[in-house]
């Protein structure tokens, strides 16, 4: 019994550790979507974030520099998306796919260019847990919640802050209005492109960090398959969370839980083929989409470009 308790605490701790990439990428998706820009380049941005984050940490011997570089790269991808869609009015999915390829190609190219082809891949240290004094002493909850690495705290606090920003401030009201009816927002003096640029750049930055987190928390190495569909799953999570920050945070527990479960069962070796466990998150995502997407409300103008002078829009 006691052993089961310890396992449960351990499990919960690992789940919180695993929510970070999902939460960051998904909140980033949500932010863009709230102004109507539907980013589908998560997988690519996360890959390039992972690559640059890893290389930054490896070259400058500092995880913080790695994360900062990944953040900036992600922001740059967000800026590109905003420019091509908000300014040039090009198809959001096509541009998203193009950015996805670019991220994919760039991540391997940069890694090969810096590291070269080696037999022994270089390693970086992983993120250390930051124990919060007093709070981490609380039985059960303490070790789960308050002895994590700092990005776990950031992911949770960010979700709460985004909720406040979107639903309790003028900026949030204006931002949401752009994704619902940009023409109405525009006619009332809201600066539509500015909102789209801000949200898409911030969203891209979050995705970059989400990618950088992966080599820094699990293996300490970069591989081409490191993101393994998490970017796409983050899109599903965003729908699943109804494009609202708190529900996304809650939903991330589910997807992170599946991740950890698959890992545990694999290590435990219960006779289930590991190939099946590897693909559990993807199966679970498809299942969740089938069951839950009917009720979800999405921003009305999601995926469409707003052109002030277009006469077809009423």
């Amino acid at each position, binding site marked *: 019994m006691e052993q089961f308790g310890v396992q449960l605490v351990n499990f919960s701790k690992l789940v919180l550790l695993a929510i970070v990439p999902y939460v960051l990428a998904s909140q980033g998706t949500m932010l863009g979507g709230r102004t109507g820009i539907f980013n589908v380049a998560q997988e690519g941005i996360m890959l390039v974030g992972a690559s640059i984050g890893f290389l930054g940490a490896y070259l400058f011997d500092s995880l913080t520099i790695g994360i900062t570089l990944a953040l900036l790269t992600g922001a740059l991808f967000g800026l590109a998306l905003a420019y091509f869609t908000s300014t040039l009015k090009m198809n959001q999915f096509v541009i998203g796919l193009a950015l996805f390829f670019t991220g994919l190609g760039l991540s391997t190219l940069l890694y090969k260019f810096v590291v070269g082809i080696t037999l022994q891949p270089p390693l970086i240290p992983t993120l250390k847990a930051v124990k919060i004094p007093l709070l981490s002493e609380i039985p059960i909850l303490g070790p789960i919640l308050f002895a994590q690495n700092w990005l776990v705290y950031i992911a949770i606090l960010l979700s709460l802050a985004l909720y406040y920003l979107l639903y309790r401030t003028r900026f949030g*009201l204006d931002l949401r209005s752009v994704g619902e*009816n940009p023409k109405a927002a525009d*006619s009332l*003096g809201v600066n539509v492109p500015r909102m789209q640029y801000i949200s898409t750049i911030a969203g891209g930055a979050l995705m970059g960090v989400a990618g950088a987190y992966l080599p820094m928390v699990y293996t300490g190495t970069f591989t081409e398959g490191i993101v393994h569909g998490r970017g796409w799953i983050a899109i599903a999570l965003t729908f699943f969370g109804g494009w609202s920050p708190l529900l996304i945070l809650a939903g991330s527990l589910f997807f992170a839980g599946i991740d950890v479960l698959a890992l545990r069962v694999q290590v435990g070796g219960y006779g289930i083929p590991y190939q099946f466990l590897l693909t559990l998150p993807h199966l679970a995502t498809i299942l969740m989409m089938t069951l839950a997407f009917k009720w979800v409300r999405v921003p009305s103008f999601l995926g469409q470009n707003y052109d002030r002078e277009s*006469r077809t829009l009423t």
Partner: protein
Amino acid sequence: MGMTLSSSPYSYSILQERLPLMSRVPLLEMNQVRKVFGQNVALDDVSLQLHSNEILGLLGGNGAGKTTIMNILYGLYKPDAGEICLRGEKVSINSPRDAIELGIGMVHQHFLQIESFTVMQNIILGTRSSSLPGDQRNGEKERITTMARRFDMDIDPDSVLEALPMGARQKVEILKALYRGARLLILDEPTTNLTPQEVDSLFKSLRVMVEEGMSVIFITHKLREVLEAGDRITVLRSGQNVITTEISKATEESLVKAMVGEDLDVSKSVIFSQKDVQQTAASTEVGPILEVRDLRVNNDERQLAISDCSFQVHSGEILGIAGVAGNGQRELVESLLAIRPRLSGEISYQDRPTIDEDTRSLIEAGVAYIPEDRWSDGFLPTANVAQNLILGYHRTPTFGSGGLLDWKAVFSTTRTLIDEYNVKTAGPDELAANLSGGNIQRLMIARVFSQPIELLIAHNPTRGLDIPSTEGVYSKLLDAKDKGLATLLVSENLDELMLLCDRIATIYRGSLVGILPRDRFDKYVIGRMMSGVQSYE
């Protein structure tokens, strides 16, 4: 009045400065404004003036450029040439924000509202006071309520927009402008969704506003409304100024000529004819072409949109469906075409129950449709003109056989129809997105009448058309009726229905509240039925 409004977030408006000699300098001057969309000159050096404390009627058919020039004034469109002066001072307006800061407000024809937000959120959006935390907004709430009451509008700031009727939503639009301290209010076709009674009350509110120091530009294509509500009239036609005149000096005839121009022989026109269209005795001995009994249909939100609806349409008659938009017209029409499933009730077409029919087989059996929203429901922007023209009829033997398409036949038919219906296009393989709104609608009409049809369902077929095009649609409908076509004409334009129909049924909240024969048509009676005040047996 001045007190309430000057406490608005935009209190530094030029319009609020009380300059001496203000009667000399017009409040607003727009000079030689030009706007081109692609190859289409929407405004060709148009000028207009607005004085303080007046209502200017901006009159013209669709496509005359009325909305375009007002969108320029409101900063939504960038003009290609021309200048705007407020109180003699040249201003540049690059966005709605600039317009708002100058004290200009605009109520758009299609309301620009966020349906999932509350009235309050819609009103304060984009203003500085929306940054106030929740409890401090209560003051704002009171301000909005007071302002609404002042103009006889009773509205709860906390109700969500999508739950409100059209009349109330229009009031929200006006409040949005007033809240921002608008001293110059632009109303774009404000009567579109109102009953005749609501129109009267709107005009009363406008008069109150003008008396309290505001100025109004009122866009309309309805002559009578502008004669009733305006002080002065400017008439536009095909993007050009025609005349500007005082109401007292204007005659109906001179305004009609100004709106229509030389393209149309007014004396032969259906629209302006003085003599009444004859009601045909519907041929009842053969039975109705379309019969609907106890129909019940849901809307997209799975709420009941049509309940217990019964009527018949006979060969050689036009049955009109009157009603304010959003009372179930769309759901009714779509269920008749099997685009939308019905909950219960019977629809029979030529004595054949259509319960198992799909849209394709109905179209093949001679049911034709002119959709209300041609952009979304009838038109393929990225396809060419020919591809658009055969939509729905592409499997008829004229256009091919054995699952193959005969493009030669399609193109030659298309060329014939382009000539016959006067569609302005480079040819059958021109990209349809290049066509203007009027030409797209001609394409829709040509598509329908190019086929042997028995029943026509037309939903707002003249919305957005200029006067000659509207005229063309009317004469086509009347011609086809004479040849025995059964027509169901669903329209939000009561004048149109009263002009063309043999009988008018009025729809209110998804039910037919009465069917009037032609000799008992009365605008105000139908208006009362449209607002659910009166039903009629």
